[in-house]
């Protein structure tokens, strides 16, 4: 199903000017696409929206690798829904439109957006009123003398919640199948701190042949999106994947940093289901 991605996203068709930086996440972008085109949210033309979504995030990788995973995750969800829509429905499936969960999320997110705008207005109103600027220091009872109610259980609970910060943010992608979008994430991640990576390195730890195919397709797609280029010095030699810098950017700066430290390709994806996240 992932092959459809490359075919269907014809560059000019239904072109929408979208500045990806304006959006706070994939749902925000999706909401924008639906609202601006006056689309019925209960009957989303999923193929069209998917194409537009992919087109909109095309430029994102180079500038904001950090946020890319979230957008790509949504892209994967859209592609999956699109595929499900094409499948003949069995009797058990019939009660749930493949788009239903997405619709719920969109409606809820829209509501949250509206509330956050209200909050923003309330914040602005409050900011126009000032409290007393100065109060002479008064003899206060030392904090240490006021009774403390916190218990050791609470401290211990907090201890259990301490998380070591992740060395780098990991993209969470649901690895249902070997999807091209997963491979796109893998490649972009690998190129986060280095300018080039060997194709073979991206396959380390993956047994199935399909991984190679999908990684290659992902490489081609990213090449098409002008995020990278592929280089092979002679036939059957190692295929190198190079990050394409923005035209104006100084390549030299980043060049040294990476050379040695290609992040282990297997680091991603993290199984999101394991964290109890609902499946899209």
């Amino acid at each position, binding site marked *: 199903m992932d092959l459809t991605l490359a075919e269907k996203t014809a560059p000019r068709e239904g072109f929408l000017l979208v500045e990806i930086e304006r959006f*706070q*996440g994939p*749902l*925000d972008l999706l*909401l924008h696409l639906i*609202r601006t085109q006056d689309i*019925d*949210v*209960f*009957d989303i033309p999923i193929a069209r929206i998917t194409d537009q979504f992919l087109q909109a995030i095309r430029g994102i990788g180079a500038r904001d690798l950090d*946020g890319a995973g*979230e957008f790509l995750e*949504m892209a994967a969800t859209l592609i999956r829904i699109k595929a499900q829509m094409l499948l003949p429905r069995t009797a058990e499936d019939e*009660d*749930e*439109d493949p*788009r*239903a969960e997405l*619709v*719920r*999320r969109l*409606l*809820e*997110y*829209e*509501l*949250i*957006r*509206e*509330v*956050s705008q*209200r*909050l*923003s207005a*309330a*914040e*602005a*109103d*409050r*900011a*126009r*009123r*000032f*409290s*007393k*600027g100065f*109060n002479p220091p*008064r003899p206060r009872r030392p*904090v240490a003398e006021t009774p*403390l*109610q916190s218990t050791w259980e609470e401290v211990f*609970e*907090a201890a*259990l*919640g301490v*998380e070591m910060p992740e060395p780098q*943010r990991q993209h969470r992608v649901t690895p249902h199948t070997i999807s091209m979008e997963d491979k796109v994430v893998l490649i972009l991640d690998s190129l986060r701190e280095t300018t080039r990576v060997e194709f073979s390195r991206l396959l380390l730890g993956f047994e199935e042949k399909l991984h190679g195919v999908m990684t290659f397709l992902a490489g081609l797609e990213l090449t098409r999106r002008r995020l990278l280029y592929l280089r092979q010095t002679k036939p059957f030699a190692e295929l190198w994947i190079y990050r394409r810098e923005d035209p104006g950017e100084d390549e030299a700066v980043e060049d040294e940093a990476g050379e040695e430290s290609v992040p282990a390709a297997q680091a991603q994806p993290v199984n999101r289901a394991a964290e*109890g*996240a*609902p499946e899209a």
Partner: protein
Amino acid sequence: MNAHQIVEAVLFAADAPLTADEIARADESLDEDQVEQAIRYLKAEYDDAERSFQIAEIAEGYQILTRPEFAPYLERFDNVARPSRLSGPALETLAIIAYRQPLGRIEIEYVRGVGAAGVLKTLQDRELIDVVGRGEGLGRPVLYGTTQKFLEHFGLKSLEDLPRPEELPVVLRERTPLGPEEPNADQLSLGGEVSAECGPGDEAPEVVESGVEAHPAPEMEGGERPTE
């Protein structure tokens, strides 16, 4: 010394909203009712005399604040502290927590579609949210709720001040529902359910469980603010 003078002095010296009960601690002779009466008296006095400040009702309490009309004059001063504004992601995250508390990080991330760890830490450090419990699931995830400071920051009297989901003009909802079936009433459908049946003009239908919990009893007694 009149009751309203004492109340005024306490309000004047406080650096955060105080409840009537708290104010009453200033003197044995005062009780909550007297404090509230004194506040009504002071409000009228300030209005009559056209004071540049007024008594605002915030976070279930009272606080003297300048009237908004004077903001342009005050904003010019370095000596006047201005609270910093929250970012879009921070506001959205707060909105989710305000309506759905208590809830965990995973749920918040699902609603926004993006990671929330950084924003949550920031909001916690600004004391706008706090850990209010732990969930049942794997690893007993930490659950967040809004705080007293949250109400103060937005100048809200209570969580009831937030609009109910049905009251919000939500564009998408105007459309016809997707299907006859009950949308999955799982923990993640604050707006979804409400939206399925009710057009913007209608009265809210019988209140849906999760949507109504939009205003859960906030567990924040005035006296028990988090330290710091």
